């Protein structure tokens, strides 16, 4: 049974409006109320749910009804699962016809929406730390101090890392061949490698050498301005932004020259980086976020850079005495193998952490796998140790729960349609898809899955469905 609760708060002649909406919707259990989000509203929900044995609730009104807390409370009041409560948002002052149409579309969607059960998944307490350098040693020491059986080993012995959070299977190469061991969480702390230099552009110096160049020039003819250009060859990382900020602030303080940093994206999702970015702006350093490729040419005055300012949407051209390109040594092809073995995404330089603002410094695309130190582009000793301790704490926060409650709303794979093409397994950002050998089909790990539906979008056989967003539900909500 579906109950439709419509909020009429803030409307003139609310009763007449409700009446019109109710008539247009024409469902059996239709209840109007002014202020559904208040205590009276919850009481109404409780009473009506009980009386009519409502299994699913549609709450229609303003954005207040969208809040997670309210949905939870309403579900509690009605005695149903949170997934059985669905909010519908009316634009302000919507006409009865519009409101009714939106409710109808949502009702159809809600009728189709499954209610999900949950499962408790036990978390193993063994922790694997890959990397015996300062980062790995510190992380392992801290994890062990929390009381978790900790294995520390060199990163290259990892052949593969399957499974998901709380129950990883790590295949580790040893003297007598490879062995598979189970871990609840993994910390990757490889020392990283100095990478190959990025190809130098004519007339430009590498960022690492910029200070030396300016110093050399300062004795004769100090340049009045300098530009630091990032993202020239590839979309770079926060490590490159951090390095550019460090160099720019130092140059600004020492030589008082005009400084411009040109980049495609300001990447500041790292500890203290946002602050350093603000400092740089306060120090008068100009930032240009460009679109496309900048055109760089030598001019009699030095170097001229023309590009499209992505924010203002207009073409800009600046002339500087000297310009530098991305820092050398950031490109790290050597991490690729470790990334592949561990199923960890890489950034544009091939370092172990994807460019993504939602990832905390120690987080990776895999829940329960953490990364610290040079292998993710952090070279500052103090920061590395702090990151290692943070990762250990994160491991503790995860594993101390002992078990996870997992809603079984993950994608389901139709074994008749799945042809094991591996597309979902390759394209899942979280490594949640795997082969279910018994049924020769792909399968999703509910605890590793984040319910994004990318696999559904990719599957060429239309074998995967994310139940809450099945095509028929989506089409119903679109008014089909």
């Amino acid at each position: 049974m579906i109950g439709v609760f419509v909020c009429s708060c803030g409307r003139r002649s609310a009763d007449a409006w409700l009446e019109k909406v109710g008539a247009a919707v024409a469902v059996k259990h239709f209840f109007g109320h002014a202020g559904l989000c208040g205590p009276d509203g919850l009481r109404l929900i409780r009473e009506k749910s009980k009386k009519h044995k409502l299994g699913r609730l549609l709450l229609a009104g303003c954005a207040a009804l969208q809040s997670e807390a309210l949905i939870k409370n309403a579900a509690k009041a009605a005695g149903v699962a949170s997934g059985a409560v669905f909010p519908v948002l009316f634009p302000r002052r919507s006409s009865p016809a519009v409101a009714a149409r939106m409710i109808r579309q949502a009702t159809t969607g809600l009728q189709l929406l499954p209610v999900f059960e949950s499962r408790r998944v036990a978390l193993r307490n063994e922790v694997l730390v890959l990397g015996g350098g300062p980062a790995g040693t510190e992380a392992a020491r801290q994890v062990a101090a929390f009381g978790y059986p900790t294995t520390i080993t060199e990163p290259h012995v990892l052949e593969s890392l399957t499974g998901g959070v709380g129950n990883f299977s790590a295949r580790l190469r040893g003297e007598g061949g490879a062995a598979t061991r189970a871990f609840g969480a993994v910390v990757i702390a490889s020392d990283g490698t100095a990478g190959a230099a990025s190809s130098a552009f004519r007339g430009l110096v590498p960022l690492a050498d910029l200070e030396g160049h300016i110093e050399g020039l300062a004795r004769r003819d100090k340049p009045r301005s300098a530009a630091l250009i990032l993202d020239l060859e590839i979309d770079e990382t926060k490590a490159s932004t951090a390095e550019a900020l460090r160099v720019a602030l130092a140059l600004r303080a020492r030589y008082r020259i005009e400084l411009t940093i040109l980049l495609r994206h300001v990447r500041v999702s790292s500890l203290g980086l946002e602050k350093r970015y603000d400092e740089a702006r306060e120090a008068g350093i100009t930032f240009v976020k460009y679109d496309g490729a900048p055109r760089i040419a030598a001019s009699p005055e030095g170097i001229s850079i023309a590009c499209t300012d992505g924010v203002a949407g207009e073409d800009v051209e600046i002339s500087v005495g000297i310009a530098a390109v991305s820092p050398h040594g950031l490109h790290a092809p050597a991490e690729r193998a470790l990334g592949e073995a561990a199923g960890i995404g890489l950034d544009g330089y091939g370092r172990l952490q994807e460019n993504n603002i939602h990832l905390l410094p120690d987080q990776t695309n895999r829940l329960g796998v953490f990364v610290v130190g040079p292998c993710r582009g952090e070279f500052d000793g103090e920061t590395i140790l702090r990151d290692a301790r943070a990762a250990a704490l994160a491991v503790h926060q995860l594993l101390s729960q002992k078990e996870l409650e997992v809603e079984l709303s993950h994608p389901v794979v139709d074994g008749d349609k799945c042809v094991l093409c591996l597309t979902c397994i390759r394209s899942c950002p979280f490594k949640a898809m795997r082969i279910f050998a018994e049924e020769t089909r792909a399968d999703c790990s509910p605890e590793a899955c984040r319910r994004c539906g990318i696999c559904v979008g990719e599957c060429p056989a239309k074998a995967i469905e994310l139940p809450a967003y099945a095509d028929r539900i989506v089409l119903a909500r679109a008014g089909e």
Partner: protein
Amino acid sequence: MITAVRKPFAEIAGMLEGSGKVLILGCGTCVTVCMAGGEKEVAILASTLRLANQKDGREMQIAEATIERQCDREFFDSVRDAVVQADVVLSLACGVGVQFLGEVFPDKAVLPGLDTKFYGAAVEQGVWAERCSGCGTCVIGEYGGVCPVTRCSKSLLNGPCGGSQKGKCEVDPQNIDCGWQLIYDRMKALGQLDRLEAVKPIKDWSTGRHGGPGKIVKEEALL
């Protein structure tokens, strides 16, 4: 696996010109894996056709179905009615499937929706590359596991031509590795370069396509 790509839409639309009831029939094996003719591609093509028909005011009924394989008779049973009802069946299977569909339904007009390309492997997600030409007498063992017939643009059996540069084939240096560079590197790694020094005789091509349409009879499998 057999690889294929979908035909240009204009060609498909041209073939279907004047058809009243069309069944688009996908194949759930090779061409699903290479993303050319599975259920999803069937739906995309069907929608594209319907949109084009809406625009141009054409009356055409388009039905969609996908079966496990179009190279085995039994799998057609589930779509028999749909095939019978259609005026024409556009098969999104490889060339094998299209023809076999026609053999199973001799009265039905069948059309190919794909261009079948080669026997290939997924070298990475979204990229398939040719690895076998089906010559009928495999010589890979003599070349360190790399097939000269397929991987060399000229199928040379005795060494590279002059067009091998920096590991690439001059026919398309961006996309084609020199097969002979691959063979050389592999044989060197295996310590078997001396095996490449003997002059290989002219190949017997009659075991493959050049011997006419192939047929395999496995005696003990016959019922």
